[in-house]
């Protein structure tokens, strides 16, 4: 119970950021970059083990943006110029220009590499079809619905590959799921296509949402675990769950990924205990609110350490 994990991304070390920018400028051979990505992945697997995290992630050292990574590896997408997402942050929003198809597995190779480094389970990390649709421009499909369903079939194939390779946990990130209230059912339908027939434990991570609208749907999401950001909403989300019968597992975001401040172990313990008044211990998985890639490596480690320590303390108390 109270198993600890990460949502997905972890910050890239400076040497990797530097190498990525050198590759973009044509100053470094992509094969060299691959070596550094492997090194960074190895380091993060080691760090997570040392900190005592139970379910590991590969840290996505080889991914830029969670949607762009899939767009780069699937047929039918074209790269765009920069668009701004907030403040001074920009990304390349992919453009769907043709039928989306999977030439070859997208995430499988990296998952196998990471799982080969550790005895602990490594999560398979996928971006959900609704989010890929919502975060891409579309010049090909006639509607948002057609785009989403086409993507769902492609992501389902990828999930099957991960499961066949032995992944025990497959997470499908859908941060965009509650962007448009009238499309929540479409997002759920697409998620159902992705998880159909999977025996691996399935998780979906949702953030920045309109939870009031999503709340009645939470119990019907076709996954075993729902991972949400609790910390940056002062754990007010607990009220939503207090009022409903919720039997799935919950991924409990206990540290704010957009704040430089490192939460104290005491406050995370207090918040975990508050959550345990709403959820059963075996329902709860403890993690950061979201991917930690926007923090520095030091901040990310410090936040993960707090998660591991607080969970250990509460677990020990529960076991008497």
């Amino acid at each position: 119970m109270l198993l600890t994990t990460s949502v997905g991304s972890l910050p890239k070390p400076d040497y990797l950021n530097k190498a990525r920018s050198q590759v973009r400028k044509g100053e470094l051979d992509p094969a060299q970059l691959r070596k550094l990505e492997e090194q960074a992945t190895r380091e993060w697997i080691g760090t997570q083990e040392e900190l005592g995290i139970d379910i590991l992630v590969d840290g996505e050292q080889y991914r830029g943006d969670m949607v762009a990574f899939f767009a780069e590896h699937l047929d039918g997408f074209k790269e765009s110029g920069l668009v701004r997402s907030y403040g001074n942050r920009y990304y390349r929003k992919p453009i769907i220009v043709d039928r989306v198809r999977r030439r070859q597995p997208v995430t499988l190779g990296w998952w196998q590499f990471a799982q080969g480094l550790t005895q602990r389970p490594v999560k398979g990390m996928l971006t959900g079809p609704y989010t890929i649709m919502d975060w891409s421009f579309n010049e090909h499909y006639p509607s948002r619905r057609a785009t989403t369903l086409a993507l769902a079939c492609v992501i389902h194939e990828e999930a099957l590959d991960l499961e066949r390779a032995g992944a025990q946990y497959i997470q499908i990130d859908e941060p965009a799921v509650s962007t448009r209230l009238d499309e929540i059912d479409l997002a759920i339908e697409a998620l159902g296509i992705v998880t159909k027939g999977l025996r691996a434990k399935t998780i979906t991570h949702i953030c920045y949402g309109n939870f009031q609208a999503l709340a009645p749907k939470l119990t019907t999401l076709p996954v075993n675990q729902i991972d949400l950001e609790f910390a940056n909403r002062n754990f007010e989300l607990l009220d939503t769950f207090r009022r409903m019968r919720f039997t799935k597992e919950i991924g409990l975001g206990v540290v704010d990924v957009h704040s430089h401040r490192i939460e104290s172990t005491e406050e995370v313990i207090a918040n975990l205990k508050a959550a345990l008044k709403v959820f059963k211990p075996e329902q709860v998985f403890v993690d950061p609110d979201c991917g930690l890639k926007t923090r520095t490596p030091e901040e990310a480690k410090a936040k993960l350490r707090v998660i591991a320590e607080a969970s250990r303390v509460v677990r020990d108390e529960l076991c008497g």
Partner: protein
Amino acid sequence: MITTVVGSFPKVAESGYGTTLIGAISRWQRQELSDAELEQVFQEITRAVIKEQEQAGIELLTDGQIRWEDLVTPLARKVEGYEINGLNRFFDNNVYYRRPILHRTPVRTSPIFLGEYLFARGCTSRPVKVVLPGPYTVVALSEDRYYKHERPFLRSIAKILNEEARTLAQAGALMIQFDEPALGFGRPPLREVVEAINMTTSGVKAKTALLTYFGRLSREILDALQRCHVDVIGVDMVSDPKAIAVLKRVKWTKELALGCLDARNTKLESVTELHALFDVVRKVVPVDRLSVNPNCGLEFLPFEQASQKLKRLVEAVRTYRNFATQNF
């Protein structure tokens, strides 16, 4: 049929005026660049986006809102009583804004956008309109920990926007536009919204516009907006496929700013489909009371596509005018 833009323009342009702003803001955040040095960069990019609009053939320009990180932060930062806070999703976009918190009576202590307006006006001989957030959208995008009721909050923001608009009009602004995307979501309290908009535009000696975009507008909302003291009302014909049907049922008394190209998708509209839209709309609002623009700010697009869309808009209007003079 005047061609115009809604407000924002891409802040970076890999195939145009470059990406220097990103590095400049990072250095300024690390205090390696002074306020004055950052201002230089803002001015340089503003000058470039004004030139882009001129070259595309746009007639009524904006400064591209290059300094604006979102629709509400620039105002909230200058108004006493506000605290800038964490990120929230900006309506139904994969774009985030800082949701400010109101702690006490908001007070405007000095002009907020005057400097930016004067600079932009000096960059071009074409008219430059001022773009401000509308009172309802400011309230909708803020967290209110002071009034706890919508009406007094709306009234206090309307008062601030009115002071700002009067200042800008006195400085010579020909047109002041208020953006109200929040009207397309949920059920806006229409009586209070109309009251706030009328307070906002009261005594402002400039042409005024109220622009809606995103979401969907009911006939009830559009009817209510006809009662507001503004000269132009803008409608996004792209985001809601039913917008045309709704528009047809409204007794339109204002000028209409027609949001007709999708500034949230890269797919380029054809001249033919734009002409078809103009044909339908002119039956509701005669062409001499029509201006045309993308459905929302162009910052949701990469520079390349933003630029193509503007050129397409101008091309569609130019050919439509020729067609109209030959046939009517």
